[in-house]
């Protein structure tokens, strides 16, 4: 019961902050709303028994990535978004498609609600412990893990080269 109450509180916070992200016209307000979304998602991960994911959600996303966003917003002195001509394709094809997609997904979930059970874990299980994740990450998923390190290296070099000032 407590799980359900906490889920509804933080799901409501999450959706409200996501709507606020779209409604705000200044990028810094959108960035702060996104931090609220990520924080409440971290609480939902804790409810699902995923402590490790909740921790790296706060550290990597709300910490590192969003600091990068706020840094760039302030570096470029990004002001209020100016309103240029609307994209007719986006407004008349895109938005109805998005609403149709949301309606379809929610409808299918409600249709099959009886067949799926609860997503909460019991407090005695070891699912979600860092040790078990490390065994998987450095055992079964060792090759993808190493490939991601190469990806990070390429991303660092790409960011440095792209953001470098200069003619060449």
């Amino acid at each position, binding site marked *: 019961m407590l*799980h359900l109450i906490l889920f509804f509180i933080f799901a409501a916070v999450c*959706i409200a902050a*996501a*709507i606020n*992200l*779209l409604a705000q016209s200044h*990028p810094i307000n*959108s*960035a702060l709303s*996104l931090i609220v*979304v990520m924080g409440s998602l971290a609480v*939902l*991960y804790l409810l*699902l028994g*995923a402590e*490790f*994911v909740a921790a*790296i*959600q706060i550290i*990597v*996303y709300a910490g590192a*990535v969003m600091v*990068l*966003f706020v840094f*760039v*917003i302030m*570096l*470029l002195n990004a002001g209020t*978004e*100016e309103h*240029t*001509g609307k*994209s007719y394709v986006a*407004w008349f094809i895109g*938005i109805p498609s*998005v609403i149709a997609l*949301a309606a379809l*997904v*929610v409808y299918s*979930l*409600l249709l*099959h*609600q009886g067949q799926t059970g*609860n*997503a*909460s874990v019991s407090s005695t299980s070891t*699912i*979600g412990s860092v040790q*078990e*994740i490390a065994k998987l990450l450095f055992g079964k*998923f060792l090759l*993808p893990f190493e490939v991601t390190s190469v990806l*990070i290296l*390429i*991303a660092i070099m*790409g*960011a*440095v080269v*792209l*953001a470098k000032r200069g003619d060449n």
Partner: protein
Amino acid sequence: MVPLSYYLGLSAILFCLGVLGFLIRRSIITIFMSIELMLNAVNLSFVAFGAYWGKLEGQVFVFFVMVVAAAEAAVGLAIIIAVFRTRETLNVDRVNLLKL
């Protein structure tokens, strides 16, 4: 005990809000934040399915998604800085030429 479908519904709503932001916003930074919102929505469904089936692979996959998102944020923001340096604008409607 929270039903799995609630988590998936929240994930779907967040994803659709991200798509909506991608379509209607004109600031390139806000568009970028909408992409992050979509990635977060997918992460939530990964963790929810992982908890539902009692498997840890879902959480490992979330780890990989986060790595890709971090790399994407670094490169994407560097591209935004490079675009701003040549165009002096962050509005995507004014960035309509590939050449400088």
